[in-house]
């Protein structure tokens, strides 16, 4: 692991979210200073701020990019109970051939009366749709019928998923599936839910139930990329990362799942899959970010630990977590007749 670049954001307050665009060339940051900043990647890996503006009247919790097939569009949600839609526009400079780009607010969505905790654009093959979740457990879906006119958003669905705060949502992005969304909330009785859209009734209903021991702070649905199963990861208050393996229709949980990835020593706040859905990253109150990957036998091992502590402490943690590092070690049988690497072929 190498530290490539240190980006000084100059936000006046805590950064709550960083979102990278579809191409990995731009990032958007949002903060408690009520500002959004957009950064562009230049040559030699440098990042430069291209735009900055005051976007809300409260702390901005989340920021997301729409798929570029809908143009350059960002959505942000805030403590001020609103969701704003921003579109990048080019304006020609007078008497010059060049244009200058700026971010214009196209719409403000303010249906709820609570802090909007999370927003996520739906997979692009469903059109330009946005899901919002607030701290009262209400989920709302919006659609922009004309992608050339982002000032118009119609609310298509509204339903209560929890009586308590929704912390996070994640769409199933694979094509060929019906619209499905995983929801994490503070409801201890039902902190993890999958909701699916039933075409016949045109309604969202709760799908497969995933029993979870504690509050789920974050959930992420992995990109499927040709696999015949789905993976969903959760970050939990109990300090554990869990990985759920579901069948192709997301109706059944695979045997021996959820897999519990132990190692963090504090509340886990976030989990996120990489773009191929093969490596999972998790961050926790123990000040570490851990990377997890499955081995050939389907067991999830800690691939890497990124820490803010000094190296000695990391090695100490590593020793303590040794049992969790499932490395193929041939200590037992010198004759190799029963090797750790057992492969089963069909």
């Amino acid at each position, binding site marked *: *692991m190498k530290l490539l670049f240190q980006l000084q954001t100059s936000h006046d307050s805590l950064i709550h979210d960083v979102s990278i665009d579809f191409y990995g060339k731009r990032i958007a940051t949002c903060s408690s200073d009520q500002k959004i900043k957009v950064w562009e990647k230049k040559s030699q890996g440098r990042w430069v701020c291209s735009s900055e503006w005051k976007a809300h009247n409260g702390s901005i919790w989340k920021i997301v990019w729409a798929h*570029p097939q809908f143009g350059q569009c960002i959505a942000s949600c805030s403590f001020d109970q609103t969701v704003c839609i921003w579109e990048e526009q080019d304006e020609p400079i007078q008497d010059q051939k060049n244009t200058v780009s700026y971010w214009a607010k196209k719409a403000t969505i303010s249906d709820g009366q609570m802090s909007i905790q999370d927003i996520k654009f739906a997979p692009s093959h469903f059109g330009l749709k946005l899901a919002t979740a607030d701290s009262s457990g209400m989920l709302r879906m919006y659609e922009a019928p004309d992608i050339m006119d982002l000032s118009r958003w119609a609310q298509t669905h509204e339903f209560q998923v929890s009586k308590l705060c929704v912390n996070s949502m994640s769409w199933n992005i694979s094509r060929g599936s019906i619209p499905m969304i995983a929801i994490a909330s503070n409801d201890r009785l039902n902190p993890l839910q999958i909701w699916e859209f039933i075409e016949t009734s045109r309604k969202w209903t709760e799908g497969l139930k995933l029993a979870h021991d504690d509050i789920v702070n974050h959930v992420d649905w992995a990109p499927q990329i040709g696999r015949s199963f789905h993976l969903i990861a959760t970050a939990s208050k109990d300090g554990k990362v869990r990985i759920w393996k579901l069948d192709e229709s997301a109706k059944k949980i695979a045997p021996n799942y959820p897999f519990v990835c132990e190692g963090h020593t504090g509340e886990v706040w976030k989990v996120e899959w990489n773009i191929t859905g093969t490596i999972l990253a998790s961050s926790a109150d123990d000040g570490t970010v851990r990377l997890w990957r499955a081995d050939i036998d389907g067991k999830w091992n800690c691939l890497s630990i990124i820490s803010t502590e000094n190296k000695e402490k990391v090695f100490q943690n590593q020793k303590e977590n040794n049992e969790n590092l499932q490395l193929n070690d041939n200590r037992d049988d010198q004759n190799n007749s029963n090797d750790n690497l057992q492969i089963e072929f069909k």
Partner: protein
Amino acid sequence: MQIENNQEKKQKQFATEIIPKIHSQNLNFCWGIGNELFLFGGSTSAFYCPKKQRKEINSQENNIYILSWDTTNNESISKFLSQTHSIFVKLQMKQNQLSNTDTLEASQGYRIALQNLKQNLIKQLDESNEDFQLNLDLANSVNPKAFKDEIESEAKLVDIMERVFHLCENFFLLHSKYPSFSFVRWFQLNFTDQLEIESIDTESIKWNKICRSIIHGKFENAINLLAKFPPNQTIQNTQKILQEFPELKYQTHLTIYRKQFQNWRKKCDKIYNSNEEIKQNPNLSAIYKILLGDENEINQRTDSWIERFASKLLFIYPNLEIQSFGSKAKECFTEKEKKERINDLDQIYLDILSLNTSRALLRIYSQIGNTWLSAHLSDLLFHIDSIQKDVLPTLGTDIREFFVLEFCQTLLSNPSRMPILVDYLISCQKMGKMLLSEIVQRQNIDDEFIYKKLLNICQNNQLDLEYKTICQIYGMKSFSSHKFPSGINALLEAEKIEIVNSGINRFFKKIVSEEIPLYQIQLVIESLESDKQNQTSKKVLFLKHYKELCEYFQENQMDKAGRLILEIMKKEIAPKMFWLTLIWDAIVIMEEEEKKIEQEQFQKNSIFNHDSIMFFLTKVKEITSSHQANEYTQYISKDQLQVIRFNLIRALPIRIGLK
């Protein structure tokens, strides 16, 4: 060569220290594309952050740290990847017609590339010692010593990779019918040096070197070393027996060889038993014992199982069958070695010798952690049917595809690797194609050249959906940059007619609000005319008329302009957003007409009669009372609207009686 303990290696490789002042309790992150991670401190719990806390926040805590584990950024490695990529592609192209020569060439090509890489890395290391300079703007945690360590470590790894490749090449490709020969040759090339007797060597060291040469099967070397001793009959006989050793060569018939070996062994035995000098000389005795396959002697004189096994293949079981290689190799471990942990690399060699290539590859992947080696070796073995081709249930794909895809992951983070990446992904069936579709879409379309290139890739790989997505992305991008013709073309290609219609509306808004050169309108017309399904025919018609109208105005042909305005409004060709603008233009023409009316020249040929004025008034009312009135009236000012109303009402009585 020992691979360092895997755990420690991983700790050193992956444990990274971030600048300590980041708020460790709220370490947050997001993934970049490929193997990039963006780390930042901040509240991960979405609660309101009190003002007090805000003031206390150190500015450094609002930094974002971008990490990556892209190891392919090194220049030497880049060259290496390009070289081996060509070999890989060639193998795939010849897939169904691969001969042994082709696969052997490929294997040798890979090994040459590995050797070149090692030399380049060493050269890089030497150069860096003189003048260390990084290409990237790295943070404080990277320093020259770390760079040096990394290069040295890479060079060692390359050595290992080359040996593993060489063993497989010898065993499966080059001398597959002669496994003993394969292994001995491999051993000789990778583990032995040419020994020379130095003037400072003691007697025992000299004899030791001779014994070692014989154990390693380097008989020429042993003969030359013996020649350094004072010549006598015994020495000469020994040299002769070494010369006569029936070395198994490529294409020697095994039955013939077996007989030759037996005859030679008998001769050797006869010399040993009949010559007292040999029996009494411990050094000569040792030599003959080795030649006669004395296991104890061989074990005493060898340091490692590989050395032991090679010697036994030479002197004890030269015709060993390939199926027995694994078990015989394991027998070469001493009791002490068996008690200690067998290192990862030895495990890999043993797996290869046991013909368990899948397990060897799995070890390479998990113990060495090098995805290049596992990908290319599995691909090579796949082509010669020396690897399992079944689907792994835990992964949903076969072992070769799994490793190639894992290798592709390492290429992901570097955008310059895209052309290479595409070829590797194409070689994989289902999952490769899915990943390819994802990667292709994530290429930033900076210009038309890249756009066309991506479309080409999609067409060549039957990625129809991705083709349309890329067209749509380019179309939207063009629209936002006001490049309407290319935007329309791209969206028509994407078959997104509803977006095209919206885009044209955007163009209309531009026309109605600013002066657009006529050639731009013509370009848009041409783009729309390429719509074979004619779904935008009405809009095309309006644009044509509008262009015509602009030309009439430019040429001061007001009567024609007036007639055209009436036509496009009466036939409802003009969109509503243009109505007021067109009516305004009509009023200008009317004023001209009125001058002619005063001059009594226009009575017979008036364009705008009473009915026309009433028509315009109706349209004004329709627009201003519509629920979208604001939208349609935004292109003219309130004053202009008043002027329109006033002039129309004023013109009514003037036009009474005009036909």
